[in-house]
């Protein structure tokens, strides 16, 4: 019903190229997350899919239909904005019903749809209020309601949770996930929050500088980052990337300059089959179930996350075991992933 295909889609603002020849095929019913740091062109990409920004070059298809030049109100997409963008002069009910009103849906049907959405999003007691009388989380639910009331086949969200506090963000995250399951629509979700991306996405497109760096499932992105940017953008704390100090896997050609990456959690007690490294514990930060520490090796310092029963103490010596198969190897010049 609504696969979205971007072919060489480019957006230029004068001299600035915000999005550079983007190729992306979003499958029908997929939850696609565009992930990247601020200014990498996520919003611009989303706005081009919505029709809110003109496309400078390239083609945009909904299924097989070319919508490159179609104005937004003819594309039948729904969108949720970071700023909520509720009409301040309308009540909650009027906000949610507005897309239906514009489509001249009969009033009885509007009432029924409104009641259903309000029920689903727990907005029923708030229907008579105006946006300024709502909390942030309530506003975001109204914005969601306005989007889902139309039963759109394409759902666009631009950092919808970034103005909410941490607890609310978690509950909204699962609400969005449930919506995706029940609506069976194609979701394109923009965020700079890697945790959000990893939990929500079917596939993630990691962007930087207006270019997609990697397109893969959350596991694929995390386990096999395509380059050092993707490797360090996902994971908390960041992956350790070192030119020396970590063991080179046996398959890496001798003499080739490489960057070796080690995820902080990919360590164990030394045992058979692991490479053993020894160093001094420098900084210990308990995180509850785990402990984060900095381990000073002869040539480098590693950030590690270990189970709390390791009972490490600052100043002590510590030996760790590393599985060479779990090391990430990147070409030192191109910073691209190398694989055996």
């Amino acid at each position, binding site marked *: 019903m609504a696969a979205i295909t971007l072919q060489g889609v480019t957006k230029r603002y004068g001299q600035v190229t915000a999005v550079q020849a983007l190729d992306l095929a979003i499958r029908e019913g997929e939850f696609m997350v565009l992930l990247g740091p601020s200014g990498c062109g996520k919003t611009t990409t989303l706005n081009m899919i919505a029709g809110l920004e*003109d496309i400078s070059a390239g083609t945009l298809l909904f299924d097989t239909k070319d919508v490159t030049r179609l104005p937004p109100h003819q594309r039948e997409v729904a969108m949720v*904005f970071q700023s909520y963008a509720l009409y*301040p002069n309308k009540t909650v009910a009027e906000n949610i019903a*507005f897309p239906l009103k*514009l489509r001249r849906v009969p009033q009885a049907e509007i009432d029924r749809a409104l009641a259903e959405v309000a029920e689903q999003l727990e907005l029923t007691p708030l229907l008579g209020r105006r946006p300024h009388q709502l909390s942030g989380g309530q506003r975001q639910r109204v914005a969601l309601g306005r989007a889902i009331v139309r039963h759109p086949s394409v759902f666009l969200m631009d950092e919808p949770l970034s103005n909410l506090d941490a607890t609310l963000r978690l509950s909204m995250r699962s609400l969005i996930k449930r919506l995706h399951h029940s609506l069976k629509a194609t979701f394109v979700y923009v965020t700079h929050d890697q945790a959000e991306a990893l939990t929500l996405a079917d596939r993630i497109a990691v962007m930087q500088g207006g270019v997609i760096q990697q397109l893969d499932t959350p596991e694929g992105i995390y386990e096999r980052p395509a380059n050092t940017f993707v490797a360090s953008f996902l994971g908390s704390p960041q992956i350790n990337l070192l030119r020396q100090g970590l063991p080179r896997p046996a398959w890496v050609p001798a003499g080739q300059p490489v960057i070796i990456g080690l995820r902080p959690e990919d360590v164990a007690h030394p045992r058979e089959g692991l490479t053993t490294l020894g160093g001094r514990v420098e900084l210990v930060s308990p995180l509850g179930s785990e402990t984060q520490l900095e381990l000073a090796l002869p040539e480098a310092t590693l950030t590690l996350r270990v189970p709390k029963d390791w009972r490490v103490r600052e100043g002590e010596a510590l030996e760790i075991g590393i599985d060479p198969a779990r090391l990430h190897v990147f070409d030192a010049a191109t910073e691209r992933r190398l694989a055996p």
Partner: protein
Amino acid sequence: MARRLMLALFSALFVLYVAGPVLWLLSSSLQMESEITAVPPNWLPPHPGLHNFTAIFTAGDSAEYANRGIAGFLPSGAANLLPSLYNSLKVGLWVAALNLVFSLTAAYAIAVIDFKGRRATLYTVLATRVIPDIALVVPLFLVIRNLGLINSIGALVVTYLAITVPFTIFILISYFEGIPRDLYRACRIDGCGHWGALRHVYLPLSLPALVAALMFAFLTSWNEFLFALVLTQNVAAQTLPIIIAGFVMDFTTSFSFVNAAGVIAILPPVLLAILFQRYIVSGLTAGAVKG
């Protein structure tokens, strides 16, 4: 304490300075000609009465004209006062209404739609107001004459639109730019075209600016003198300022009558201001304080 006293004192002085002439206008409009010219002046009317107003509203009526000695000297153009009041109202309302239509659509296009040459359009519109009016009088006269509009209300409406629309476009653009762009985006996504976005987002959210623009357009045409003087030649199209100014240039000037006419002239703007007062303050400063 002393500071507040000083503040109150200077405020009072300032109010007196601004309101004094208006109060004197009001007071003298209720006095007889002889009472106005008395020395020392009568600050308050000794025998307040509406005789001057009666004279204005019956100036066309010959029976009352015979009694002119009571109210003072009726100026020769007195009978034109009511028709000119009507002309002024007509011109003002037409200008205000058409101004809103033109500036609303133009401001929307310039502020919201990203078309090629939008900067150039804005600067061109604004540049037309850099030229002083006096320099435009002759060319405008020729244009209006060639259009066959001399001495018609239409001549004034067209001219006043040319004066007011650039300013109101500017007021509305700066207000529109303060309205969050995401509201426009949401509206487009929800199914609005440009007319829909104008109607559902920009119109309802810019009421203060719209009222300010309306007031500005009406007041400008209500007060305008220079173009009205040149473009209209008789009572068919002359507006209040022209007629009232004519009273003073008369052979003998009747102050009581001029003052009463003055009170009538300030009445419509004052009524308008009272009607819209809750919008005005926010409207006049709109765009000015928003970063």
